[in-house]
């Protein structure tokens, strides 16, 4: 049981100061911009809620938001089950375990723009391995600078490549924490492999899977660098996800007001969904 101690605040203070400096001041800047119009030279005009109203009614925003949810939905639907299947098939003990884990974690340690560049080189129609296989060996017309479908397939494959290992490692950590006695008991009861999965492995993995879904949701919803380097948001606007659109407005067009309003709505959506997951997680912690 934890003891009540208000002096614990002294321990937390340094974290608070550093994070507040990085989070509160920029956030206030964003709030400040979101209600004003600027024509440069630090001249600002009060606009009230105009940017928010315009943004919520704008088709461009709806389209980017829709693409963002589609992307996040697809990669969650692929990465979570795939990660569980791979974790279940992994050996529990032996010399191969660390080798598997290190190789699987490798994609996550590559800088994000290198990931984008790597997949770009990999998918080049004539000289990339993937592009060559698709076009020449399999005879499928594949060029992600031309076809929106090819571009989507490529960014999704790239994300699956990049992040499925996170789900694998989390599920694996949950699986190895199950004592052997559980499996022996299941064997005596004559439980089928599916029942072992449903009633022993899945409940044990529930908490780590919540973390996996939470992390994958947050990171895929905020994704910027990889798709930007890979497709640049194209062809057309086909793969312009929310972050890419935001940077286009803020730094490309330098429309600070609308960009700030968009930032706040964006952050609010991420927060809301993440809060739902967090509530689920702490509910499990309390049990």
């Amino acid at each position, binding site marked *: 049981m934890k*003891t009540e101690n208000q002096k614990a605040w002294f321990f937390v203070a340094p974290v608070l100061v*550093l994070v507040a400096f990085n989070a509160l001041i920029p956030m206030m800047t964003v709030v400040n911009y979101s209600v004003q119009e600027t024509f440069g030279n630090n001249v600002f005009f009060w606009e009230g809620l105009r940017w928010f109203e315009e943004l919520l009614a704008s088709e461009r925003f709806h389209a980017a938001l829709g693409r963002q949810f589609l992307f996040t939905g697809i990669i969650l639907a692929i990465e979570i089950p795939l990660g569980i299947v791979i974790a279940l098939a992994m050996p529990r003990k032996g010399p191969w375990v660390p080798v598997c884990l290190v190789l699987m974690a490798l994609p996550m340690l590559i800088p994000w723009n290198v990931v984008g*560049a790597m997949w770009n*080189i990999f998918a080049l129609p004539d000289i990339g391995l993937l592009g060559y296989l698709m076009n020449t060996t399999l005879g499928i017309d594949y060029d992600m600078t031309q076809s929106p479908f090819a571009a989507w397939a490529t960014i999704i494959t790239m994300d699956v490549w990049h992040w499925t290992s996170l789900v694998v490692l989390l599920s694996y950590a949950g699986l190895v924490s199950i004592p052997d006695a559980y499996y022996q008991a299941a064997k005596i009861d004559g439980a089928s492999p599916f029942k072992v999965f449903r009633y022993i492995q899945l409940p044990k993995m529930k908490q780590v899977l919540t973390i996996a879904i939470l992390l994958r949701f947050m990171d895929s919803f905020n994704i910027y*660098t990889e798709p930007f380097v890979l497709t640049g948001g194209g062809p057309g606007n086909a793969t312009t996800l929310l972050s890419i659109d935001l940077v286009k407005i803020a730094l490309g067009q330098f429309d600070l007001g609308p960009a700030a309003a968009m930032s706040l709505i964006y952050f609010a959506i991420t927060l809301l969904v993440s809060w739902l997951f967090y509530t689920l997680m702490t509910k499990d912690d309390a049990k």
Partner: protein
Amino acid sequence: MRKRSLIPIIYILFLLLPIYWLVAMSFKTTNEILAGFSLFPQTFTLDNYTTIFTDPTWYWGYINSIIYVSLNTVISLAVALPAAYAFSRYRFLGDKTLFFWLLTNRMAPAAVFALPFFQLYSAVGLFDTHIAVALAHCLFNIPLAVWILEGFMGGVPKELDETAYVDGYSFPRFFLTIFLPAIKAGVGVAAFFCFMFSWVELLLAKTLTAVEAKPIAATMTKTASSAGYELGLLAAAGTLTIIPGAIVIYFVRNYIAKGFALGRV
């Protein structure tokens, strides 16, 4: 059992394929790359690597990245350790709210913060310094470090603290000589994660630097756009960015699964 092990093997092959292609490209000459498809380098060359190791704008990119990543790891751990201890051992006013607020910063899209960060760090005169990037990355690394360390600390029985006090240990002595060694796996894993997320992040690092502290990843972006299509050079630079990660991961290989579960299994 045999059939089952095929799944991880196929998955790992899928992971290694694009990496192989990047490495293969880095040993090809520009002529060979542009001439057409070849599975293996036909004329094996180290020219791309020679260029990187002799051109200061290239190799300084690596040095810059390593400096700010190391700074960030040290700062994050130094402040996260006491905070995680407080969260794991004590109840205090607003603790739950504070913990969630810290986590929300892990959720903030970096794109939201890019411009305000540029203005903030320019205003305090830190623009284009290593410390600016190190501090900026604290935004998402400190919450993560607190989260991981709190998970590992929760696994240490409270009796350890109490016994130490009965034995007359002062708090700093207890923390440094007894508690830290007890959670050293957690510290290693937290350090690994700070390193990892600071190493892979580019948007903020690029926004906060111009010349003096420019990260390697930004140098690459510039080459890709300005020097035409130097794919071999780009591939060599990319290959070199994989190496530091591979080295750090080797050190935490036995704790990695538990680490990714944030110490909570």
